[in-house]
């Protein structure tokens, strides 16, 4: 039996009186691309922030094991050192920091060119540019993915990696996600785009902070399309909050 890479049990996170994640269970296996579907407000990004250890996202209860370690007891940079990373939906902009520096954080000996090529950006044009407001949304997204690639993570959480990417570049993004797996890593892929979700090995649907379906990506997409819920658009889904 293969032990899961990430094993989330009974995870709850509340903001005030409102439960954002509600007794959530989810496992991700080694070398697995796992898509996470769900309507706006269903808790996808909250789960990503909580797993990464962002400030203000401490669980109320539950356990998370990552490579067998108690993830929730670790600080953010310790989680990263263990092989976990997150690509934000709206990546940060940095005044003065070059693409070269950003892609070699803490690893000055590494060569940033191959990962730039992998995300479809010309190193000669981009290495000395700054990761600031002058980059377009699409360029910034690609550099974020290059940064994740350069880390060679065990588990990359990608929050809407194709947001703001033009249709012609979509295949590029899909290739990058597959490259993360080919390099031996796993991906928790948060997405609204069917085309992206369908490349996953498995997929889960999140609703009202709870996983209400797990299965093949095609099944999960069909489930997501067919089922609506209180959170989605005012109808009733099959998850009833106890």
């Amino acid at each position, binding site marked *: 039996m293969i032990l899961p890479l990430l094993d989330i049990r009974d995870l709850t996170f509340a903001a005030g009186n409102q439960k954002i994640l509600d007794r959530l269970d989810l496992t991700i296996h080694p070398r697995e691309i796992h898509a996470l579907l769900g309507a706006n407000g269903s808790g996808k990004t909250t789960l990503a922030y909580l797993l990464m250890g962002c400030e203000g996202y401490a669980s109320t209860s539950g356990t998370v094991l990552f490579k067998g370690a108690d993830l929730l007891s670790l600080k*953010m940079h310790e989680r990263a050192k263990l092989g976990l990373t997150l690509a*934000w939906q709206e*990546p*940060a902009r940095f*005044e003065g920091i070059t693409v070269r520096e950003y892609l070699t954080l803490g690893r000055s000996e590494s060569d940033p060119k191959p990962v730039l090529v992998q995300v479809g950006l010309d190193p000669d044009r981009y290495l000395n540019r700054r990761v600031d407001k002058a980059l377009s949304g699409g360029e910034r997204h690609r550099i974020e993915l290059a940064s994740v690639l350069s880390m060679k993570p065990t588990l990359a959480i990608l929050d809407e990696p194709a947001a703001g990417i033009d249709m012609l570049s979509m295949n590029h993004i899909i290739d990058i996600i597959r490259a993360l797996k080919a390099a031996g890593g796993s991906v928790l892929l948060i997405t609204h785009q069917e085309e992206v979700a369908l490349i996953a090995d498995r997929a889960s649907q999140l609703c009202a902070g709870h996983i209400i379906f797990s299965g093949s990506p095609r099944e999960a997409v069909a489930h997501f399309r067919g089922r609506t819920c209180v959170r989605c658009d005012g109808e009733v889904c099959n998850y009833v909050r106890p």
Partner: protein
Amino acid sequence: MSDLDDLRRTLPMVGAEPSILDDTSIAHVVAHGHHILSRRTVPGLRVEMEETPDAIVGKLIVEAGVQIAQPIHMCFGLAHPTGVQQITIDVQICEGAQARVLSHCLFPLAQAAEHRMQAVMEIGPGASLIYTEGHYHGPHGGMQVLPHATIKIGKGARYFSDFSLLSGSVGNLDIDYLVEVEEEGIAELSAKIFAHKTDHITLKEAVMLRGERSRGLIKTRVVLDGEARAEITGITEAHAKGARGHVDCMEIVQGQAQASAIPIVRVFHPEAKVTHEAAIGSVDKKELETLMARGLTPEQAVEMIVSGILR
């Protein structure tokens, strides 16, 4: 060791090579207190400097149409813990001329020292001046620095200034610059300062866009830690058709430091526009967490963000 040698040795603290003072193709002035220790000029450049008991008084003139190929180095300072230096200087970049001035203000041992500069700069029509001013005040925090300048930018002229004080202590810094910009002139003022302990910064920069289609930018980046204080005022007034200005101030506050930013924008013509942005606070949380999600410790992440802002 002579005062000249002491100042030479400190030049790398502001990013300059001591060997520039030996290069016969590079103009320079070196002044210690109220004594001129070394000077050299090049064709098209007139440097008229005079020692007085209370000040160094002089003119730096780039003749019309002349392009000075190499930067002109002005090295002012004190190699002793105490003393006073007053510089009164007129800088004239005549019509169509181009020059770059690197001003190095070096006070490596300052414990109770004062540096005052009173400058008037005139950038003639179509002329260009890039003025870079780097300061090093040593580790003790005993420096009072008061650079005050009035800068007049003629029709179609360009003026770019870059003030930096990034290593060592600041002491007490009081900058007051007034810039007047004529038709189609451009003024860009940048200041980058890293203050510590009980350093105190008062920075006031005013750009008056008098001429049509004139342009102005004031960009300030200040990082404060310890108990440092800063009051930053960026003023831009647009008085003519097509004038455009922007004030951009960012202050990062750490520890017990305190900062204020006052952007003042005034527009006196319906076809002029001035914008401003000011941000004061700790290091941006998202930037910090992004770097930590790549494995940097909180301390490494803050250091990287701060060094980027001050670049």
